[in-house]
């Protein structure tokens, strides 16, 4: 047990070391062109060259290991047993969500997480399809966001995938915070992460294939999706704030005006 804890810690330590190494390989900051400078700031990805490298390794590992495992799970595992298995893995996240909902001062969601944890137990035994309560997912990254910390630059973690500086700190923090880790041991945490990865991947096989096929820059598409998804998670699914699509208006698409005259304006 203590051995595996040490083993897992060394993985985290390696991650931190890798990050430190990445810092040395920053993207070159464009200096002259203001447009290029603005694009660079907006992407908020100073480690882009290193991130792209890690990403390509992650994609390779996915193709070689995770995707085939997910396909096997989808095709060979009995459909009737998938919902209870999925519930089981989802449920193991509820204690962590409970703690973070409390840390965020959100009693409603803390209660929901607790209720889900409790109601899912009989559901599991009876192998029904859906517990009545929706699961709640909260983690240290989201708690830090609620507390006012910015996400910071984008970080592509080996094996763990897209993250940010804040998300990475959160992942490390959650390793110590998560009750599942204290009660069931590190093996359980790793088992849960692995099981969850396979289940999630088995449910997005088509979407990922579609994205890979249709995106012009797969890395940039994943970066954008990750960020927006995290923001949506921090908002707990509430409608986005006022700002999102700054100004898509109808001035180019009003047949009364005709697109050509304004197309070259602005």
């Amino acid at each position, binding site marked *: 047990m203590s051995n595996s804890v040490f083993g897992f810690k060394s993985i985290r330590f390696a991650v931190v070391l890798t990050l430190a190494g990445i810092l040395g390989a920053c993207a070159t900051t464009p200096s002259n*062109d203001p*447009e*290029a400078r*603005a*694009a*660079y700031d*907006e*992407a908020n990805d100073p480690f882009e060259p290193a991130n792209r490298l890690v990403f390509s390794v992650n994609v390779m590992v996915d193709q070689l290991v995770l995707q085939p495992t997910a396909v096997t799970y989808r095709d060979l595992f009995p459909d009737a047993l998938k919902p209870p298995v999925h519930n089981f893995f989802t449920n193991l996240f509820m204690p962590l969500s409970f703690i973070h909902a409390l840390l965020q001062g959100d009693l409603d969601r803390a209660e929901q997480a607790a209720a889900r944890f409790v109601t899912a137990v009989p559901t599991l035994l009876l192998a029904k*399809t*859906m517990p009545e309560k929706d699961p709640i997912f909260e983690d240290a990254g989201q708690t830090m966001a609620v507390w006012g910390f910015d996400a910071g630059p984008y970080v592509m973690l080996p094996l763990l995938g897209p993250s940010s500086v804040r998300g990475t700190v959160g992942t490390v923090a959650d390793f110590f915070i998560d009750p599942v880790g204290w009660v069931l041991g590190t093996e359980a945490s790793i088992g849960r992460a692995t099981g969850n990865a396979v289940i999630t991947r088995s449910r997005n096989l088509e979407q990922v294939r*579609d994205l890979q096929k*249709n*995106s*012009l*820059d797969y*890395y*940039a*598409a994943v*970066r*954008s*999706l990750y960020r*927006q*998804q995290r*923001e*949506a998670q921090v*908002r707990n*699914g509430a*409608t*986005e704030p*006022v700002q*999102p*699509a*700054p*100004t*898509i*208006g*109808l*001035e*180019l*698409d*009003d*047949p*009364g005006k005709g*697109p050509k005259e304004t*197309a*070259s304006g*602005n």
Partner: protein
Amino acid sequence: MRYIAAIGLALAFIVSAPTLHADSHTEASAKFIATLAERAINSISDTALSVEERRSKFRELFREGFAVNGIARFVLGRYWRKASDAEKDEYLKLFEDVIVSTWADRFSQYTGQKFEVNGAHPVPSASDQENVALVESRFFVDATTPVRIEWRVASRGDLFKIVDVSVEGISMANTQRDEFNSVIHKAGGEVSALLVELRNRSGS
């Protein structure tokens, strides 16, 4: 008794009419989405269609329902101003072609999943000539898995157009913009690099 009820109803209508009118664009936007979705499902997902027929039907609905040029300009971001007029014209055409071929093909995989509009609410508009409403809807991937889709609809009088679509909080316009900007940025800020990529895609 019946008269009193009728008068009460008429009064209620008169009193509520101004507020009804003020937010009528949200109602109309919700109806606009429901109608457009129904037409799309009926016409585009017909399995008997050839690829070309499906794309041409989709293009028709896309032009009618979406602010294609406004979205295209937003997606190009800061590079819109850098692009030459010739580049802009080609870009607008290619943007539409690529969206049409991608989404028409996605529609071909539609197999009768349930789609429902759940309501709409007004959101601030950047222009005082336009109203903007957010129409909320759900698409059921399977019986127990709803996907939340929000349609941002801008309107001027009778003209209604979708300006963005969000799936589970992820904006399609923002995603496309980040991706296109990355392609151009990687090529040292040359819009022509994006046009090359789009040309390759639009042919497929």
